[in-house]
């Protein structure tokens, strides 16, 4: 069978939307949110092959799945997040839990476990996190001791505990990271194995429709064939191989959650009459609380989609790009949900409307699969190496590329992208020359500025090449306006924040630095910014009618 084409992807998304419309009402979600309860029937129904069979996307075709590509999986993640991030997390846990098998499993292991997951509709959980091992998996404590018989390893006894495991209390199959004598390794543990128990479900701030529980292993025996890849010590590599990919999925969660919140607020604002007209007609309301979020959503969508297409070619890796996508999209989604409450005033603060719940839910996307701070560090490290290797030319080269794009396509903000890159190169170079990266805070902030620059660049290039990102509701012309807005704001942020960091440790003259990052040049590009934002607002009012 062929890979899924765009029409098929859209068909799947329509089915998912319709299913949610018919089966998952706001009242239903609200009730489960209040009770802190996972709607297990809904998850099982979503796995039913005749209803949706959403989990089949992650299973390769040769094992009875759909062999979903990164693009359709992220788009399904975005749509799931628009429905409910708790339910989305429950589905995602099965995706994530299956990944070690996908990456490291032998053909026999894949055949056995994927058939089970595909045809018996098993829920899966991914067991990596421990009390002292979150993003820093090196401090892993759970042990897997060899059990030998006649000098041959026949199995392992797993002892230890895991915490904050999504689907922890409800999964049928668990992939568990434990320290074997040969190093960290993934094991498959089935529910009901003697000595394996699950703790009570956590009482969380948000995603309350997802089950989160600790796991306890007391000399839990698993046969040697449950060691993924049949080789000890491959655990970290197998975990890291999919970070680019899994973080992209969480990026889509941040995007979907944010979009749902702001869209709810915008549709409300089209009807809410204050001081003689609908709120959505008021410039201050739109430019402060609504329009900037749509600009960032479309920038995030372009970046996520671009990274997904790269991953489809490269299969694995792209850890820096995955981190950029997640940091940018989830932080944007989180801020957007916050403003959606503000935009709806008192209504937004009540449980009658979904935005209050979305705000609680979307916060997790800035935490799980790598906190924003861990991502900032990852991004910094990835690109710092490039900066050093190229003797500071890494972003200069990209600035030149965008100056060339601007000459051909003057309407996408490529000039500001180039200015942002040049400012970033200067900031990085100052940090190198003065050894400022000894300040951990500076490394975090640089990670953030790098993500701003790179997302703005991809968005502008996609627009220059005439591509409307799939799933976007805007036409190319509107996306170009959005890209101009985004590129200007991102260049300004890079220059001013970068200056703040360097001046903050007292290592430059403000005047020299200001000239070095070309602050005036960046500011001059602000001409027409508000006009562009007003154009975006008008388009939003046209598309998101009450």
């Amino acid at each position, binding site marked *: *069978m*062929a890979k*899924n*084409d765009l*029409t*098929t992807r*859209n*068909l*799947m998304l*329509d*089915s998912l939307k*319709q*299913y949610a419309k*018919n089966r998952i009402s706001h009242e239903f979600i609200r009730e489960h949110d209040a009770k802190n309860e996972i709607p297990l029937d809904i998850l099982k129904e979503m796995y*039913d*092959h*005749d*209803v*949706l*069979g*959403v989990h*089949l*996307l992650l299973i390769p075709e040769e094992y009875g799945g*759909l062999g979903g590509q990164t693009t359709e999986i992220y788009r399904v993640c975005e749509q799931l997040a628009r429905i409910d991030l708790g339910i989305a997390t429950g589905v995602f846990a099965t995706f994530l839990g299956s990944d070690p098998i996908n990456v490291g499993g032998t053909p026999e292991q894949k055949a056995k476990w994927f058939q089970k997951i595909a045809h018996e509709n098993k829920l899966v959980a991914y067991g990596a996190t421990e009390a002292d091992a979150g993003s820093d998996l090196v401090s892993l404590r759970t042990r897997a001791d060899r059990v030998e018989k006649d000098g041959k390893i026949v199995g392992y006894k797993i002892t230890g505990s895991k915490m904050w495991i999504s689907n922890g209390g409800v999964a049928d199959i668990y992939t568990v990271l434990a320290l074997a004598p040969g190093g960290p390794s993934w094991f498959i543990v089935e529910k009901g194995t003697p000595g394996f128990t699950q703790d009570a479900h956590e009482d969380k701030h948000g995603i309350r429709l997802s089950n989160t529980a600790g796991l306890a292993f007391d000399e839990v025996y698993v046969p040697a064939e449950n060691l993924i890849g049949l080789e000890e010590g491959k655990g970290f590599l197998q975990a890291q191989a999919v970070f680019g990919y899994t973080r992209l999925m969480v990026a889509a969660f941040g995007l979907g959650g944010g979009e749902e919140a702001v869209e709810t607020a915008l549709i409300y604002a089209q009807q809410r009459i204050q001081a003689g007209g609908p709120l959505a007609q008021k410039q201050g309301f739109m430019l402060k609380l609504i329009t900037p979020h749509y600009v960032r959503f479309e920038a995030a969508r372009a970046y996520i989609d671009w990274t997904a297409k790269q991953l489809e070619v490269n299969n694995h890796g792209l850890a820096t790009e995955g981190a950029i996508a997640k940091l940018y999209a989830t932080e944007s989604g989180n801020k957007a949900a916050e403003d959606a409450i503000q935009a709806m005033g008192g209504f937004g603060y009540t449980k009658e409307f979904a935005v209050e719940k979305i705000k609680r839910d979307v916060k997790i996307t800035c935490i799980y699969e790598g906190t924003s701070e861990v991502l900032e560090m990852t991004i910094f490290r990835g690109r710092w190496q490039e900066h050093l290797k190229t003797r500071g030319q890494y972003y200069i080269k990209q600035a030149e590329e965008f100056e060339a794009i601007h000459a051909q396509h003057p309407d996408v903000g490529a000039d500001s992208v180039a200015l942002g890159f040049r400012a970033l190169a200067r900031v990085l170079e100052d940090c190198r020359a003065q050894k400022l990266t000894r300040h951990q805070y500076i490394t975090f902030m640089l990670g953030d500025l790098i993500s701003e620059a790179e997302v703005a660049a991809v968005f502008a290039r996609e627009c220059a090449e005439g591509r409307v990102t799939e799933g976007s*509701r*805007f*036409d190319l012309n509107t996306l170009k306006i959005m890209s101009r807005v985004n590129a200007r704001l991102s260049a300004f942020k890079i220059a001013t924040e970068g200056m703040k960091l360097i001046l903050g440790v007292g290592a430059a003259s403000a005047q020299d630095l200001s000239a070095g990052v070309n602050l005036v040049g960046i500011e001059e590009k602000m001409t027409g910014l508000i006009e562009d934002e007003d154009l975006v607002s008008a*388009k939003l009012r*046209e*598309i*998101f*009618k009450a």
Partner: protein
Amino acid sequence: MNIIVCIKQVPDSTQVKVDPKTGTLIRAGVPSILNPYDHYALEKALAIKAKTGAKVTVLSMGPNQAVAVLRLALALGADEGVLLADRAFAGSDTWATSYALATAIKKIGQYDLILCGQMAIDGDTAQTGPGIAYHLGIPQITFCDSVDSDGQHAVVKKLIEGGHQIMQAELPVLITMTMPVDYVAKYPSFLAAHRAQDKQISIWTAAQVGADTHKVGLEGSPTRVSRIFPPPARAKGEMISGSAEEMAAKFVEILKKESFVK
């Protein structure tokens, strides 16, 4: 047995607004869907297929992106799709459209039962189905909410004022379908959507179906739309509350005030 279901891609009317100044539909950013009446007709055809093993062909006319609704129909269980796509068809009214679809049906050749939605939600004319029957010279029954067939006859429940009329017809016959108020459209599973990629969709031009180009497009369309406008907004009603006696008294008072009674 061969069933042909005529389907149309339409803007989701629940999301379409009329521009009060120009009277035209604002379609920007509005998603396209399968016309709900056609969706229902298709499900009825698939139910007959399940019973009799009939072959179900779906036929649509429209731009290339209308392939999306054919694919949806194939994912739901139809066997083959045909799209009539040609610039020559652009601007066709219901008369020209029904002529074009009839030529395509003749090219498909074998048909016993033709199902159409009662009307498309973007035009609400309910003329295309009857037009096809006319061009093919076959009988038609309109406004049915149920249809069944044993391969020899079609038995339908036609919606009439105050009830249903149950009718039986010899094949071939064309039926237009309305839908029950509580109808919830079925959508395919991910697996069915994936598998539909392997089913055949033929794209035919006017020349390929032998359509006379003078009879399609703007030239072949006698309809002229003089104006489209939203109906004027009605004044808000007034609710009367209180005991039965109080409400009756208030009601009579209003009738007098508005000079309905003296």
